[in-house]
Each structure stands twice: as structure tokens, then as C-alpha cells.
């Protein structure tokens, strides 16, 4: 499978002979088709692998996939997932990365956007520091298949809402957006139908919640937002950060707080934080 197609830049007489053209596309040089395919997006390339054996071989040429993989792909495979990279075609590596992969004892997931190769991360509420999380009067971890982590932190009622998290991860260079995935109301399944319990939802209309992001250069981005949209999962945009050097780990901190103790608030599900390239962030619903 996937013989590496020779680049047209190295020219020996043997290779020139190999590249001699015949009129029937069945004899088409693999390298030539590979060069055409290199101008397409990954999903299109993989679709064309179906055309014939030559197309399939061309679609697997490593030189096509090298620029499409994120610059930190070896870091992701070796250090985060503990998987081998050598001996595998780059197309296979790209395919493997396009599906979410769990790491850090199941509290994080990483994947790449299949069209752009942009690196995305999700961090579970399990990985966050939540004030009062051990007190069942305030918070409970509830199992749900509406979270990619199969569990969310559910707030029944509290005065001091504080959810803190941090991350150290080697991102490729670029601009990234961070979101909190939240839900007002407790979603349950009754006879395979989704039902929502709103009995604890209160206090969100009195004062806004505060989102904060501390960027790699130490700047703090703060925003405030009234939580409404009961019964729907919302990705709340916290802020953006820029990664200038993809060769070193990036450190960020993020938080969700509502510490006005004149009122209680409750009925909130905190699922996770999502980080993705800002160019992909536009399709998400956020406040």
C-alpha cells in the first residue's frame, strides 16, 4: 500500500524514462496524479483514491500529506498518545488524527479538523478545579452521552461559582479560540426521548457570569455574559490566544466565575472547554 511517489525534482535518466507519457490514463505516472491531488483538500484526495489503483497509490504519496499534517503531529502521537509514528504512511497518520483521541487519563481529547488539519482540543470538567465540587449539596458529576467525556459537572445551587482550568500543550503556530460548553437545565433520557429538568435553573438573569482567559504572554481576556438559552448546549466564547512558536508548549489558564454572593445560582451543566483554530470557530454558537 502507499508507495511513496518520487518527487519530480530529482531527475535521473531512469526516472525520466519512468515518467514517459502514454496516451491512456491507465499508464499515467503516479507522481503526476499525486501532484494534481496535492492541490486538493484531504477529504477530496481520499475520495479520489477510489478511482483506480494508480489514483489510490497517488493519493497515499507522503509528500502530499506532509504539509497538511499539523506541525505538532509527532508530539501528539508520541508524547500524548504513546503511539508509534515511524513506518506509517502520512495519509494514515492524518486519518488517525482526524478522529478524536483521548489522553491524560481520559480527561482530554485531541483531533484535527479534516479539511484544514487544524488542531482541536477538548478538556473535560473532570480536569477543572471547581469550588465545592466535593459537596453534593452543590455539585454532582452526572453521567450523560451528551458529553464526549460521558460525564458533566452539574450545579444544583451555590453562591460562589468558580470553575478554573489550565493547559500546557504544544500548539502549532496560529490563533486559537477557547469556549466553555454549558447547558442550563439537566438533560435526561426518558424512554429514549430527551427530557430536560429545569427545577434548579435560577439566578442567571440577575448578574452576568465572567469568563476569563490568560494568554501565553500573560494577558488576561475577560468577558461577561448573561446565561440564557435554557435547554440547549452552548459554546460560550471566552477569548482568543496567539501561538507564535510551535516548537514550545503553550500555557493558558481559563475560568468561569460568578461570585456575587447576594444571590444563588443553579441548574447549570458544565461539560468541557473547547479549543480550536479561530478560523473554525465561526460555525459555533456562542455568546
Amino acid at each position: 500500500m502507499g508507495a511513496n511517489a518520487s518527487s519530480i525534482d530529482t531527475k535521473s535518466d531512469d526516472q525520466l524514462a519512468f515518467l514517459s507519457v502514454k496516451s491512456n490514463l491507465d499508464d499515467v505516472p503516479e507522481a503526476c496524479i499525486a501532484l494534481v491531488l496535492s492541490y486538493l483538500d484531504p477529504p477530496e484526495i481520499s475520495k479520489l483514491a477510489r478511482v483506480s489503483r494508480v489514483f489510490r497509490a497517488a493519493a497515499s504519496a507522503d509528500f502530499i500529506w506532509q504539509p497538511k499534517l499539523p506541525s505538532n503531529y509527532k508530539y501528539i502521537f508520541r508524547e500524548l498518545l504513546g503511539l508509534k509514528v515511524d513506518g506509517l504512511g502520512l495519509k494514515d497518520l492524518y486519518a488517525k488524527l482526524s478522529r478524536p483521541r483521548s489522553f491524560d487519563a481520559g480527561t482530554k481529547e485531541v483531533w484535527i479538523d479534516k479539511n484544514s488539519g487544524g488542531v482541536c482540543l477538548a478538556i473535560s470538567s473532570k480536569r477543572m478545579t471547581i469550588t465545592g465540587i466535593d459537596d453534593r449539596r452543590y455539585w454532582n458529576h452526572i453521567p450523560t452521552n451528551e458529553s464526549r467525556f460521558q460525564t458533566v459537572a452539574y450545579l444544583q445551587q451555590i453562591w460562589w461559582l468558580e470553575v478554573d482550568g489550565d493547559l500546557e500543550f504544544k500548539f502549532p503556530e496560529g490563533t486559537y479560540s477557547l469556549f466553555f460548553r454549558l447547558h442550563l437545565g439537566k438533560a435526561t433520557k426518558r424512554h429514549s426521548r430527551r427530557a430536560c429538568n429545569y427545577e434548579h435553573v435560577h439566578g442567571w438573569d440577575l448578574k452576568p457570569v465572567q469568563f476569563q482567559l490568560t494568554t501565553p504572554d500573560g494577558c488576561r481576556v475577560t468577558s461577561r455574559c448573561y446565561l440564557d438559552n435554557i435547554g440547549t448546549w452552548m459554546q460560550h466564547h471566552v477569548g482568543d490566544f496567539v501561538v507564535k512558536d510551535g516548537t514550545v508548549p503553550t500555557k493558558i489558564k481559563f475560568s468561569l466565575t460568578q461570585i456575587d454572593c447576594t444571590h444563588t445560582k443553579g441548574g447549570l451543566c458544565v461539560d468541557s472547554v473547547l479549543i480550536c483554530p479561530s478560523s473554525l470557530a465561526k460555525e459555533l454558537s456562542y455568546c
Partner: protein
Amino acid sequence: MITLQSSDKDVFEIEQSILIQSGTIKNMVEDDFTFIPLPSVDTETLIKIIEYMKKHADKTDSKEKNIKEFDKDFMKKTLNELFALVFAANYLHISSLLELLYPSIADRIKDKITEAIRQIFSIRCDFTPEEERRIIMDNKWAHEGTEIEGTLD
């Protein structure tokens, strides 16, 4: 003057200064060849290649806009013609033409379904049904959930 001979045995006499845009021909000229057979390039394709090289031989500033217009029109050919050109340009090492052809061809094939591409190029599917199923499975990742949230919302 250099003489080129196509696979159909037609001959063309062209100035050396125009032909050196082809890396392959340039090498042969430097080795003192004046008659260059091109068994891999048919007459129809060679005519187009010569037309391209003639237009691109004079790259003075005043001609630049002219050349861009020409290039745009030059790409308006059937897919079969473009593929014939890309193989010839590949063999002849005409990088400027290749840089035009690769994205143009890519653009034209990307929205076509597998069967359409096979028909256009008269390729027979050389996979067994089992192999074809395997390929579809292997490439499933490319067609799963387009949203960042996947199956959740």
C-alpha cells in the same frame, strides 16, 4: 533552430531561445542535439506546448497582462487535453506550465464522483469489489461529522 519530432512523426522547427523553457530540451541542446525526438508527446499536444512556450518566451513587463489572459484561456480545455498537457509538461520539465496545470486540473476533478472520473478518462475500475469496499472503509474518516461537536448536537 531545433527540430522536435512528435510521437506521430510530425516535425517542428523552433528557435532554441523559446525551447529552453523546457528543462529536458535545454539539457539535450547543451549536449549539442539539434534533432529531438519526443516519443511520449503526440502532435496535438506538442502544438499546444509550443504555443505556450512561444507566448511565454517574451516575458517583458508590457506583455505580463497579456500572458495572464493567455494562460487563463489556455486552461479552457477538456480534462483529457489538460491531462495530456500535464504529462507532456512533466516529461519536458516546463515548471511554469505545470504550476498552471496542477491546480486547474485539481479544480476540475474535485467535484466529480468516482464513476464520472472513470468515464471521462475511460479508466476501468481495477479493484475487486472486496478491495473497493476496503477503500471506502479506510477513507470513511474523511466523510464523518463535519461539525466540531461531532454527533453531540
